[in-house]
């Protein structure tokens, strides 16, 4: 594909593009913290329920201590999300511009580069 020419212009689309420069999107918080937090709390609550499960509840789940296992799994997942955020924290928008190829005025996002 020919990459040298500019795409077709349209006033409404251009207007929106101009607005993007004053975007506040860089202030968006990191969703990993919310997912991690919710699952850690879910994990703790459900694990505790699993520890104190009565025989009737274990029998209902075909003899599987499902609360215990599901609780521990959710706790592990929640902590993993928090850990991911801790090792690769959201970069401040200003620092991101170094990594941008081509568009120096691109606003950064609240995430480390890539997916």
């Amino acid at each position, binding site marked *: *594909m*020919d*990459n040298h*020419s*500019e*795409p*077709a212009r*349209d006033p*409404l*689309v251009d*207007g*929106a*593009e101009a*607005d*993007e420069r*004053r*975007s*506040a*999107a*860089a202030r*968006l*918080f990191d*969703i990993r913290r*919310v*997912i991690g937090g*919710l*699952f850690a709390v*879910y994990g703790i*609550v*459900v694990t505790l*329920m699993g520890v104190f*499960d009565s025989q009737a*509840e*274990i029998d*209902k*789940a*075909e*003899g*599987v201590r*499902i*609360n215990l296992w*599901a*609780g521990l799994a*959710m706790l592990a*997942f929640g902590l993993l999300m928090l850990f991911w955020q801790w090792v690769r924290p959201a970069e401040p928008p200003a620092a*991101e511009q170094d*990594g*941008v*190829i*081509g*568009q120096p005025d*691109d*606003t950064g*996002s*609240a*995430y*480390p*580069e*890539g*997916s």
Partner: protein
Amino acid sequence: MDGGGLRLDLNALDYVLLGLYFVTVLGVGFAARRAIRTSVDFFLSGRSLPAWVTGLAFVSANLGALEIIGMAANGAQYGVMTVHYYWIGAVPAMVFLGIVMMPFYYGSKVRSVPEYLRLRFNRPTHLLNAISFAVAQVLIAGVNLYALALVMQALLGWPLWVAIIVGAAIVLAYITIGGLSGAIYNEVLQFFVILAGLIPVTVIGLVKVGGVSGLMDAVRDSKLGEAGLHAWQDTGTTANPLGAHWLGIVFGLGFVLSFGYWTTNFAEVQRALSAKNMSAARRTPIIAAYPKLLIPVVTVIPGLIALVTVKGLGAPSGDLQYNNAIPLLMRDLLPNGVLGVAVTGLLASFMAGMAANVSGFNTVFTYDIWQAYVRRDRPDDYYLRIGRYATIAAVVIGIGTAFIAAGFSNIMNYIQALFSLFNAPLFATFIIGMFWKRMSALAGFWSLLLGTLAALATYLLYKSGMIHFNSDLEESFWGAGIAFVTVAVVAAILTPLTAPKRGEDLRGLVYGTGGIDLKAGVLAGDAAWYRSPVLLGVIALALAVVLYIPVF
């Protein structure tokens, strides 16, 4: 059967888990508010999100009522053939959207799918699509809301109107306040909560039936029989559980229906448009394809488990309908604790579906109807305000539709089926317009209009008994196919008779006209080979093929 109906025995701690989720959802909405300064922040998250977030939101926007409840029901009714809805009926279209179509959507900087039609063709085509999309979204939001309320009523014993208003109020709050970021962030959260709810049901269900081999033996003895375990067997005729010929599956479901839904439905595409750069936008639907490949494990398999463990499942009405497969398993197998998580996951899935409709609607209403045709050239703050009003209006109309649906649930199903048919002519118009430079603006309008009317006519003739098809599914394959052909024929006839668009007006919108920068805004890390959209897409397609190979 204990005759206790579908009512689940939730205790205080289950309600704590549910309540925590609702509080978190609202908190996400409020926290997203500070990132909104412009209308682009509100409608497209300021085009700032990373690919894994938009990708999970993309798959979550589709994990609504139809998906969880409906696919488990299909699993119980049609057996393993239900996987066609995922592996051939979704993954190829998602990969195609990412690799082939996204450069045109994202590269042209359009803010919505209808807006692409305005630039590629003309304003009448745009208005036609914007209005039909907007109407469809509010009506479908109402249907989703009604489905949500029905489940809350059946499972928790809440009165229908309380359930409708609580569900609507929560969705309204987090989208009005947090905009698309609120919706997308909650969709990502919902994705994980839905899985956390469905995995325990699947695991315990499998333990109960003696693992995968035990399940297969039990299915052989069920009313589905051996045929329930095969995806392609007997598809040379229509004598299989789905009643579908392989041609219908491959071309009807796999091509026209699924490409129509996944590639032109703005409620989906909007998630990719909010990605932070071209690479992330292209990876959005492809990243979504990976979870999509595996979701049948937690929908189709529980459906089969319900078939063999719940006696009498498949009744035409009452508690033992196929649609109740998953709620019945939850009632029978889950102790308090995971039960609370599972109910939360189910409610999350309903809210995800409705939120996707509402956030798609407010964007199209504001940008494509209000700004383009009613009030142009106002300051950006004005459109941001209109977007919030449109959200409120959508939810209020949705509540109204939900109450209508409560009275005429069959009619609402028809309406939903009807709108899904509109996708086929839209996709045909898009795909021809994207690859055939010469296609004129006038041809675009008439192709879309006549294609839609052809789909509508097929549907109405079938419903009134004038034409016969073996099943609703077969009708939808044929209706979509007829619409597609109509669009192509109209475009081929009208284009030579009408004036072409100027080449420079099509730049970045049509294949071969240039103007697309596949590396736009790319960060250093995006160049890594494992982040290549083409490579990721090819792997997803290969997995879809591999999964069809029977291993047992």
